[in-house]
């Protein structure tokens, strides 16, 4: 093989393997989060559906999507990171126990921290400075793709408030949907591969 020919194939291999590595990393990153992340169950609140490009999906809202800061707190900036500490409640589902723009210093063994990003905040009105600031949060677990056609049925279940989501959360607080549950039974399970 001549040098020129070898160089060509080295270049081709570099580009193909490089791009494949990026795609592979995306998959590995997500699969390891799903496999190793701590599992929590969150109650789902209905929102509205459908993407033009990406097929059927349902939009999922959560109790933890809104966090109320005490009056007088400076509202966080849009897209700023926001950390919410969760703890298992009386039933299956987990509830918010604390939240803030900084990660909590100490976390109890039965608690888990999920990292979100500020979508928007409600500003207190001028005449009422004592009003609390409500922060709307996004965790990257707000949409769930389903087999074509199954969206409507699932949407109805979400509408009837019968759904809860199983979420995996890793040590950095990143979250991924593992599956959906209805009345304690798994209705959609997310396969790893």
């Amino acid at each position, binding site marked *: 093989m001549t040098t020129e020919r070898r160089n060509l194939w080295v*270049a081709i291999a570099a580009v193909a393997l490089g791009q494949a590595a990026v795609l592979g990393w*995306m998959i590995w990153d997500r699969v390891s989060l799903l496999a190793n992340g701590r599992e929590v169950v969150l109650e789902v609140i209905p929102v509205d559906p459908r993407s033009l*490009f*990406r*097929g059927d999906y349902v939009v999922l809202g959560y109790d933890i999507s809104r966090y109320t800061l005490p009056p007088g707190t400076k509202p966080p900036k*849009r897209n700023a990171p926001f950390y919410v500490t969760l703890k298992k409640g009386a039933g299956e589902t987990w509830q918010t126990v604390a939240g803030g723009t900084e990660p909590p210093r100490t976390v109890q063994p039965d608690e888990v921290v999920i990292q979100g990003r500020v979508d928007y905040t409600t500003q207190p009105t001028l005449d009422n400075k004592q009003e609390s600031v409500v922060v709307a949060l996004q965790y990257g677990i707000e949409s769930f793709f389903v*087999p*074509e056609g199954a969206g409507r049925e699932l949407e109805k279940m979400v509408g009837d408030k019968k759904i809860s989501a199983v979420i995996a959360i890793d040590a950095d607080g990143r979250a991924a949907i593992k599956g959906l549950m209805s009345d304690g039974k798994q209705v959609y399970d*997310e396969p790893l591969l």
Partner: protein
Amino acid sequence: MSRYAKRLDRDLVRWREAGWISQDGEANIRRDLASTDSSKLDLASALGILGAVLIGFGAMSFIAAHWNEMPRLFRLALIFGGLFASYGVAGVLFERCHPTFAHAAVLVGVSIFGAGIMLIAQMFHIEGNPPDAVLTWALGALAAGVILKSNPALAVAMLLVCLWAGWETGDTGEVFWPFLIGWGAVTAAIAWRGWSGGLHLAAVAMAIWIISLGYWLFDGNGHGVVVGLGLLIAAAGIAAPLVDERLSPWSMQGAAYGLCIAYAGLFALQFMKELPLDYFILLAILSLALVLGSIALGLRLGSPALLWLGYAGFSIEVLGIYFKTVGSLLGSSFFFLSAGILVILLAVVAYRLHARVQPGLEASS
């Protein structure tokens, strides 16, 4: 046959008939032309590129299609298989000296990489920040363009950088400065390849970005900055050959892009904002002076681009003033009268300038 070759073909016949060159001389010139005229367009290449674009779109519409009947591993195999296959085909085509088709195959590879990012995000419910996915795609295209020396891949990288910046700007409503880094990286790669068409693409991208600054800076009042930057670029373009003779081929283009930016800023200032009348008249005079300037410069440098820019600028300016003033301040009859006088004045100036550039004109007419 390129445009240059066609023109030379006509001229050669005329020159031979006039007796300025010999028959042998003509034959030699034609032979030289045939061996160096590399910029010919052929149908096969054009079809190859079109085919690649179609396959790219096919890969993208995979997302919209119902492919959930396939097992997940099979889908992944399809993405990775497609990626390796298209680069493999590109390698074979480069080896067999079909560069156009090889570049088309590289484009398919870049498209599959982009489709792969979106499909994997869909399959694994990765939401994240969508512009980040576009940036990843742009970096993949840039790497393919640099490593495989593929101009089409670099063009895709430039378009993706623009999409990335546009998306971020749309999301935040603020100027997206990291665009400059992305633009700089892709432009450096294009300059390294010495691809003049790509440099024009880079210039257009930069011009659009600068013009957009007017709408985002200072709550949408940044058009003055746009005008200043445009004039600065135009001046730099004109002055460039004085600094270094080798820059002279770019002088005219620099001036044209700069003036185009300045016009866009001036038009936005005059016609999109509510201004006091005296300020408006000042800006209108400045615009018309610039129009005249670019027409004069176009004639001086023999640049049709600058000439047409001047004519287009003049038309838009006049039309803009018309819509701004009609029925309000001046009345349309006064407008047409003054515009007519202006055009005639312009014609006289243009004729004088033209005559000065080509002294034979006045004598022969």
